[in-house]
C-alpha cells in the first residue's frame, strides 16, 4: 500500500513528529511504500540541521534524514511555511538575500502542490499534528 504522511509540528515541542516517524518506520518494515512525507506548518522545523539535542535524547532531525537515506524517502518541506519560519536551503537563502541556510540532509523544499499530489497518488494520507 502507498502512503503519504503529513507532519504539522516541529521536533520536541509536540509528539507529532515522533509518532509520524514511528508510523513511517513501521509501514516500511511491513513492506509498504511511502510515496512522500510532507512537512507543513511548524512541521518544517523538522528540517533544520542546526539542532543539537541532549545526548540522552533522540535526535528527531537525524532520524528522518537516516530513514530517508535508507529507504530513499521523499521528504518535502513546504516552501511557503518554510519561508515564514526560517527554513532555507542554499537556493532559497540566496533568493531571499539570506547569509546562511539550514536545511538538513535528505529534505527538499517545494510547493503545496506536492501535498495534493501525495493525496492523489497515494492510497492513504495520514496526518500528524497538534
Amino acid at each position: 500500500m502507498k502512503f503519504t504522511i503529513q507532519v504539522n509540528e516541529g521536533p520536541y515541542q509536540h509528539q507529532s513528529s515522533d509518532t509520524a516517524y514511528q508510523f513511517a518506520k513501521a509501514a516500511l518494515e511491513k513492506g509498504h511504500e511511502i510515496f512522500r512525507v510532507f512537512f507543513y506548518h511548524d512541521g518544517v522545523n523538522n528540517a533544520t540541521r542546526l539542532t543539537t539535542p541532549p545526548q540522552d535524547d533522540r535526535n528527531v532531525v537525524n532520524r528522518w534524514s537516516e530513514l530517508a537515506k535508507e529507504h530513499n524517502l521523499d521528504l518535502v518541506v513546504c516552501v511557503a511555511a518554510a519561508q515564514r519560519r526560517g527554513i532555507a536551503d542554499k537556493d532559497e537563502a540566496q533568493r531571499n538575500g539570506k547569509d546562511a541556510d539550514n536545511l538538513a540532509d535528505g529534505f527538499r523544499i517545494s510547493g503545496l502542490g506536492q501535498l495534493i499530489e501525495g493525496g492523489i497518488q497515494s492510497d492513504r494520507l495520514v496526518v500528524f499534528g497538534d
Partner: protein
Amino acid sequence: MSESKKFLYVNRKAPYGTVYALESLEVVLIGAAFEQDVQLLFVDDGVFQIVKGQDTKGIEMKNFSPTYSALGDYEVTKMYVSKESLEERGLTVDDLMPLTYEDEDDDWAEKDSIILVNKDEIAALMEEQDVVLSF
C-alpha cells in the same frame, strides 16, 4: 488511481489564534488547480473562520477572510457548516459571510455555497471521501 478523487478539508480551528486556518486555505487554493472534487467542512471552532465582519487591523495580522468569498471562482462551491457547532457558539447562519458561486450549468445563476449539515450528515459526508485533510 481514479481520474478524480473526492477531497474533504476539515476545518476545526478558529482563525488568528493559530495559523492553521490560513495555511489550510492556502492548500485549498493550490489544490483547486488539480481539478479534484473539493469540499470544505467547517465544524467545531472552524465555523469561526467564516464569521463576517473580521477586522484585523488591531492585531496587525492579515485578514484572510475575504478569500473564502473568492473560492467560488476556483470552483470550490461546497462549504459544509455544522449546525450544532453554530448553535453551541450562539451563532446562526446570518452571522456568517455570504458565500456564493455562479453556476455555469444554470446560466451563471448565483447560488449559495454554504450547506448546513447536522452530525449524522457530517458522518456520512466524511465516509464519502477519498482523502481527508485535517487542519
